[in-house]
């Protein structure tokens, strides 16, 4: 009796509206999609088997993984450099840096993708400028290939990479680094043997976050890839909106979902998830 009363804390009444909404209108259809992946067009693991049989599916799968990995490494490296600089400079400079970071965070993904289209096109500004300076004679193909997708994605992901690293670096006790220097370690040794290991949780959290976000990324690959770089998200949309094959799309969505949940689980072991997403519950 006591246990029941305890589990029916009045606070749950406030949680209920949104909880019910998510269960009915979000969890429900997602479970339905997972169900479809093993029943449409016929019951069984046929959809999942396709992954090993169909060359095109396999290629899309690996393209997605490759682009996500490169994006993750690129944006975490660059993000690390930004976060490091932000933690180790004066308050005023830091707040300017944070402003730039957040402004870029807030600029619409569509605006940014559109800008890259202007800059990277065959007759785009970058090619024009390079040709004008006589650096190249032929325009470089920045678009409709993986290079363009990677530029657009890394550019978009850097702010996301910086934030978890910043949280982690700000929580470090700088006296540990001073101790290392006092004990005779060089700056480089202190960085490699003390600072870097201490920021490892931040690096892991930031990498997983970027990987998760890249995995389902739709806008930039669709526009800058120009149909030449097919990633899972775009393939799903084609399957649903053009060829109406729910089974294959559901299978890919299921794989993506399990991948994301697995990574979230790993991530939660390294860092409080709420810290990564800006809260501090």
């Amino acid at each position: 009796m006591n246990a029941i009363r305890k589990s029916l804390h009045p606070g749950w009444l406030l949680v209920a509206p949104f909880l019910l909404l998510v269960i009915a209108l979000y969890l429900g259809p997602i479970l339905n999609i997972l169900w479809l992946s093993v029943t449409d067009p016929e019951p069984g693991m046929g959809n999942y088997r396709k992954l090993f049989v169909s060359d095109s599916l396999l290629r899309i799968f690996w393209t997605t993984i490759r682009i996500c990995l490169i994006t993750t490494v690129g944006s975490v490296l660059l993000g690390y450099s930004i976060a490091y600089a932000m933690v180790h400079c004066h308050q005023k400079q830091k707040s300017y840096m944070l402003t730039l970071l957040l402004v870029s965070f807030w600029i619409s993904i569509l605006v940014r993708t559109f800008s890259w289209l202007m800059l990277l096109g065959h007759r785009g500004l970058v090619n024009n400028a390079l040709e004008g300076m006589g650096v190249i004679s032929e325009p470089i193909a920045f678009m409709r290939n993986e290079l363009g997708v990677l530029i657009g994605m890394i550019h978009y992901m850097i702010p996301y990479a910086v934030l978890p690293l910043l949280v982690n670096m700000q929580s470090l006790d700088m006296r540990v680094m001073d101790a290392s220097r006092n004990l005779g370690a060089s700056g480089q040794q202190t960085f490699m043997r003390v600072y870097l290991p201490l920021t490892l949780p931040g690096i892991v959290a930031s990498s997983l976050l970027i990987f998760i976000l890249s995995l389902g990324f739709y806008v930039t690959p669709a526009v800058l890839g120009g149909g030449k770089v097919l990633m899972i998200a775009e393939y799903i949309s084609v399957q649903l909106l053009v060829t109406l094959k729910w089974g294959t799309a559901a299978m890919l969505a299921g794989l993506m979902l399990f991948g994301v949940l697995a990574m979230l689980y790993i991530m939660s072991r390294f860092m409080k998830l709420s810290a990564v997403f800006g809260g501090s519950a």
Partner: protein
Amino acid sequence: MKTGFFSLFNRAGAWILLLFLVTPALIAIPVSLTPKRFLSMPKDELSLRHFEKLFSSPEWMSSFFQSATIGISTSVLATALGTLCAIGLWRVSSKYSEVVRAFLLLPLIIPQIISAMAFYRLWIPMGIIDSYIGLILAHTILATPMVLITVSASLANFDPKLEQASKNLGASNWTTMRRVILPSVKPGVYAGALFAFILSWDEIVVTLFISKFSVYTLPRRMWNGIRENTDPTVAAAAVVLIAITILAFAFSAFMSRRSASDTKA
């Protein structure tokens, strides 16, 4: 740690990177001022014709209006649901409530393409595909976790003793909520409302799936413009969006500074 050569070098690199983050988007500004009918950089003269076209086009204007309607409705709904939810979870504060919290953050984390599939799947039988209701509901589910995060962050700084004090002094639950808890989480509520609006205002992936003809939001129209890639009106629209972003940013920075000085005082 003393500022070494490496640190200075890295700081310079970080500034360059930060500028690299912001500047590409600004390219839309000169392109929007071109006098030509196609996407190009202006050479000798500047012209505002594409802004004129943008503001006199019934299609673009209706999209602005639709996005604003959906964004504001989403923001109101998400703020109400998210604030209630955050306060509820904070009051329960048990092992279960943390599990529920993690579960409720999922719509924010699960790739939008999967959310889009889910809404598309359910909205068709429910008959709310391609309708305001459908878009507002979908955006609300995606945006409420944002409010949950920002309000929870505010609650983390709230002293639970104040709530007890209010009740000891004879205030009802409702009065305590309205007069004690809500005022002290105001910054989180405002921030959440703003984030929820931006999320909806900018949302494209789910929108592509669950809208067709009768609802045509601004991102949807931008998306089409980008895919056709010829009309400089898109550049003008992009400039307007950047301006709105910067205004919203300045507003939220102002609000958070004000609330910060409030707490100090």
